[in-house]
């Protein structure tokens, strides 16, 4: 079975925020909620890199592990989704997530947060009928059910953001790395090469 993954090629991302806008428009997410964002590191200095980040659909998802009402589930495609009918807006998934993916429509005194909202990999929610009015209202479009990939990646002007089966995404990226013969932006470089700067 395929495992759906996002990958953002930091060599290609130009911080156009097209993915952010596309996502907001496609899913009609509430004001103040951004399922995806672009973070620019070392902004304005040599070596600047931009990365588009949303829910990374972790295999061992911390949000799912800490949720007190156990509202998260992983689909057969490896997409981490949640059930807004169960969510109580406690904020634990926001504490646990390394990427800051879980967002809340409200942020008021006495812990009033509303139901959590996050990237669904354009796969909707647990509603029985795909792309029903209810599902669209709660989770946005279900493009996966239509056989399409997430809109953020489809819209990416430089094809920096890749989405789809993890194996295929990895193949595309590996090809790119070989073609541009750049160093892979991997960790553990020092360990492998035993060189310290």
């Amino acid at each position, binding site marked *: 079975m395929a495992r759906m993954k996002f990958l953002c090629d930091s060599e290609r991302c130009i911080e156009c*925020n097209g993915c*952010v806008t596309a996502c907001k428009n496609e899913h009609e997410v509430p004001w*103040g909620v*951004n399922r995806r*964002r*672009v*973070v*620019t*590191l*070392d*902004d304005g200095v040599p*070596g600047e*890199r931009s*990365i588009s*980040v949303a829910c990374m659909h972790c295999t061992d998802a*911390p949000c799912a*592990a*800490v*949720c*007190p*009402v*156990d*509202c998260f589930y992983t689909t057969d495609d490896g997409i981490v989704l949640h059930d807004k*009918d*169960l*969510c*109580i*807006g*406690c*904020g*634990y998934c*926001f*504490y*646990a*997530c*390394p*990427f*800051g993916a879980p*967002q*809340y429509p409200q*942020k*008021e*005194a*006495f*812990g*009033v*947060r509303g139901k959590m909202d996050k990237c669904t990999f354009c796969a909707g929610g647990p509603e029985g009928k795909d792309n029903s009015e209810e599902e669209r209202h709660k989770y946005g479009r279900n493009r996966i059910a239509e056989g399409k990939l997430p809109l953020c990646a489809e819209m990416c002007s430089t094809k920096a953001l890749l989405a789809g089966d993890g194996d295929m995404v990895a193949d595309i990226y590996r090809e790119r790395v070989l073609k541009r013969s750049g*160093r892979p*932006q991997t*960790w553990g*470089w*020092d360990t492998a*090469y035993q*060189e*310290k*700067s």
Partner: protein
Amino acid sequence: MSDAQATEGKRARRFKAMLWSIVVIAVGSMTLPLAGYLYTAAVQAQEQAAGDAANPRSEYWREVRGGMAGYTAVVGQETDVLIQSRGQVWREIRGGPVATLGAILVLGVILAVLTFHFTKGGAKLEHRTGKKVLRWSALDRVLHWYNATLFIILAITGMSMLWGRAVLIPVLGKEGFAAYAAFAKPVHDYLALFFAVGLIVIVLKWFKRNIWASYDKEWLKNLGGSFNGTHPPAGFANAGEKLYFWALVITGTGIVVSGFYMLFPNLGFTREAMQNANVIHGISSLVIIAFACGHIYLGTAGTEGALEGMWTGEVDEGWAKQHHGLWLEEVKKQGAAPAREGDASGTSATASA
């Protein structure tokens, strides 16, 4: 060779030597200062070679992993941080030691209480005199039951947030538990404020009665006489009650302060602050819940005649003599009619509060 010729040659050589010295000095004075440049250039070249050998990006991503902030156009809580890895630490600590040791602690205290009750048994009232002594004023009783009710509600709703998934979901089902949790969470959040106020009032009002005294050591040494049947000295509050009070002060502070961090997401506390607050909140609450289990037992089934004091305000003189001998003596010294006048320490505490 003539003498004149020899002196001529000598002079020529001297001149030559002088000329060369001047040239050497001139060239040297011009080139030597440049050696500094040469040195720095060499060092730079060396550094360049070393720099080329290592991947400049290797530390870059490690810094990002460590929570380095960048720039983002999206406005929101810590949106400029790409990776915040403390959440994993929080997850491991909350789901590991806090939940596990907390469960062992609370259930262990309940087990210890049950075992004690069924083997040794609680303290019986040895001699009921029928004479009453006022122990708790109406205000004390109202404060106690106000805090007790809130404490139990907050403890139950709080523990369902921690263990509900493991314990209640198999019983109620996901929908059932979510319906309960959606109700329990706001209840916990709003009642917390009332509990915090009650806690502060109760701590201030009962502060004086719970100051450690020299004879409290003996009470602790005998474990209150629960096992050896003695009646160690105790004032208005015995050493056990004082311990419970101070535990309440310490954990209560932790609970209220950490709760504040989690209760107001609108104030923009960082995720790390909220993670730490959650762990402190959990540990403090579980410790005081364990204490409270002991307190509830000792105040009801564990000590005959104790509950009527908190219910009617008056205790039997026999009970007072058995459990709070020093206090009874003091009450008797204070006035001939102690039954209706209230106790000395109680009034002084009221005055201070």
